[in-house]
Structure formats: structure tokens, C-alpha cells
């Protein structure tokens, strides 16, 4: 498994995992086999960019530009969040 710190890694949702907006809760939800996650706002912005095509570097660059934040800071947040969800089996890196 490659580390999220590797900029070229392309994260994708694990098999059977879906990310969608729930109208009832007015919130994004991450659905997995018999489990689910209710990601916070920051995680939602990252997950919206996990499409199996963008690299970690591309995700960081996108967020850094849109939120006008230092890329190093964003990279740390993105890496920690992706590693956390990878450890829970929801994301593959």
C-alpha cells in the first residue's frame, strides 16, 4: 500500500463504498458494506475530489487554491484524513 504522503497516489473509494448527499439530513454520507460514516465539512470537501482519477497532489492543489490556504497545511490534513479512511477500509490508496 502506498502512503498518502506520496503525491502520485490516486485514492479511490473501496469496493462497495458510495459517497452521496442525503436529502433528509442535508448532509453528505459515506456508505460502505453494513457501515457508514458521516464525514465532517473538511472531509466532505476532500471526498468530493476522490474520483479515482485525481492524485493526492491534484487534490491538495485544488483545495489549496479554492480555500486560499498553504499547500503544506492542506497536504497534512488530506494525508491524515485519507489514511484514516484507508485504515477503516473505506478508501484505497
Amino acid at each position, binding site marked *: *500500500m502506498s502512503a498518502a504522503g506520496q503525491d502520485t497516489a490516486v485514492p479511490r473509494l*473501496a*469496493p*462497495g*463504498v*458510495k459517497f*452521496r448527499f*442525503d*436529502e*433528509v*439530513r*442535508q448532509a453528505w*454520507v459515506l*456508505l*460502505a*458494506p*453494513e*457501515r*457508514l460514516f458521516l464525514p465532517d465539512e473538511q472531509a466532505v470537501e476532500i471526498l468530493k475530489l476522490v474520483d479515482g482519477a485525481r492524485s493526492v497532489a491534484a487534490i491538495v492543489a485544488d483545495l489549496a487554491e479554492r480555500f486560499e490556504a498553504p499547500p503544506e497545511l492542506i497536504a497534512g490534513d488530506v494525508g491524515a484524513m485519507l489514511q484514516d479512511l*484507508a*485504515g*477503516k*477500509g473505506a478508501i*484505497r490508496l
Partner: protein
Amino acid sequence: MSTAHPRAAGAPEPPLAVLLEVTHRCPLQCPYCSNPLALERASAELETADWQRVIDQAAALGALQVHFSGGEPMSRKDLVPLVRHATQRQLYTNLITSAVLLDEVRLGELKDAGLEHVQISFQDTQAQGADHIAGLAGAHQRKLEAARLVKAAGLALTLNFVIHRHNAERAAAMVALGAALGAGRIEMAHTQYYGWGLRNRDALLPSRAQLDAVTAVVEAARTEHQGRLVIDYVVPDYYAHRPKACMSGWGRRFMNISPSGRALPCHAAETLPGMDFPSVREHSLQDIWYESPAFQRFRGTQWMPDPCRSCERRELDWGGCRCQAFALTGDAARTDPACALSADHPLMAAAVRAAAGPPPPFAYRRYSEASAR
């Protein structure tokens, strides 16, 4: 457009998941089945249109996942259209199956209908022991073939093992089988002793040494397979000091619909006396979740006796399991005897002692053994 129901302050959150026990019919006869002793006949089951209405209401209520379970859900001829209906309502669909009726054609139909995930029950890792538990010759081999079909179809796969004194020694082999079959998730769930499991407790309850060995296997396997294989582990209550948060609390996260349409906070709730569980034939899921006395009876902490009422863990374990409290003490409103703070806690050690001898034969889960209703 939101379909949200305006909720009063302090009202419960919507359920996360709804489990549809679409039938109690099953080719297997596992002696720890989570179905009630009073099995429902095919003639009592809801019609297709009823289940479709339940699915519509579950989605509108805010459920995110629907579990198609049983019995064997593939015993229902309308399973594929029901899965399609749930998919169209954006519900995440799980099939919880013995897999002995699952072939390539039906799996293809289910996948086309939008099925996301298949959980296959395995009774052991060795065919002879597995088929003995299932009460069906050849079952284990069919499950292995079905698991390979699920993987080949690109669907997410979970293996479910119910653990007891007859298979605890194969815990490491269970993990290895899951990894070899390409499962993304394994449930290593010790038998829960309600209904059929309670009736067969002396035949199933593992020793403390067996439990500790399984726990050690699970902990090591979680490290070894982290990020590739999720292992959900459920321990038996009989060696615990604190109760489990049964169903994450009564009426907090989960709703179960029985084959005939009774809405329940858990699989075993119909064992509780004096409860009037509402039928989906007469009430909407919305009304059942927010308004019915049955779903409010043990919701939250107001119902609690001491020592739960003043316990700092009262919103962690929600007082444990109501069905276990009733089954072991005769009072559903008592603290779960699994808790060491319960005056009834010695019942657990007494049950362990009673199960220490040679195991009696199984009372298999079958209609002829079922109690009348």
C-alpha cells in the same frame, strides 16, 4: 428537494438502517438463528407491494441502508424487484444470505438491480462441521462457490462467522478463508444467546479460554490485514463486565421489519411481553419511529432503573439488551445481567458453569421445533 419531516427539538435522529426480514423460510437450520422461536409461515408474509411501500417510507424517513435478510431472503421470488426498488430510492443495499440458493444467473439479476454488497454466512471452515451446524449436506461447498461468484461479479463481499464452542478453534482459518476469497469484511460474531441461541446455550457457549484465543486471533488479524480486510468482532455477553450497546440503543439507529410486517427495534424484541409492536400494514414507518409507544418504551435513558440511571456509561451502552434482561430475569426493564453492577450478574457465571459439561445435541431451527404463535 428535501423530504425531511419537521422534527421537534429533542426528537430522535432518523434511523440509519432498516433490516427487512422478508421471510423466515430458510434451507438451513442453524441452532443459533437470530429469528424468533415462533417462526412465521409463508402465508403470513407481506406482499411485494407492502415491501415496496416500506422501502419508500424507509428512504423518506432517512434510512441510508437496507438489509435484505431472513430466513433466507432468496426464498422470496420478488427479491430482485425489491432490490431494484431500494436502489431507485438511493438506499444502499445489502443482501444477507446463506448463499445456498445463489447461482450466476440470480446474482447477475441482483447486480443489475443495483445490489451493492453480499454477506454470506459460513458455519465453519471445514465442510463436515459446517454442514452439521447448518443441518444441510453440501451447504459449505455451495457457499464457497457463491462467494467466488460474488467476487467475480465485482460486488463487495462479507463473510459472516457465528462463533461457538464447536468452531472457535478455527478462528485463524476463518480469517484466512475470508482473505483467500477476497472479502473486504469479515464478521467474527460470537453467538448471541436469545431465541434459538438461548435454547441451545449449553450446546454452544464457548469456554473462557476459547473466547480469549479467538480474541487474540482477531487482534492479530486486524493488524495484519489493516486497510484491506475489516474485521468486525462481537463477543458473547457471558464473560463481560459491562453490557454491549445493544442495537446502539433501543430505537436510536435501527428498525427491523418481520416477515409479517411487525416493526421492531431489534430481531428478538417480539420475545418481550406486554409490548404492542406496530404493523407496517397499519402504520407508516414515520409514525412508528417517532410516535409509537413501542419504539419509545426503552429509548434514551428515562426508562432506566438503578444502577443504569446514575451510571456514567448510560449513554454508551444504553443499559445493554432488553431481550437479555427479560430472558434471564423475567423483567425487560432491569439492568442487563451482563453488567457486573447488576444484582443479576451471577446468572452469567451460573450459565457458564451449566455449559461446562459435554455439549447436548442441537435443537435445530425448524418449523417443527418452533413454538406456536
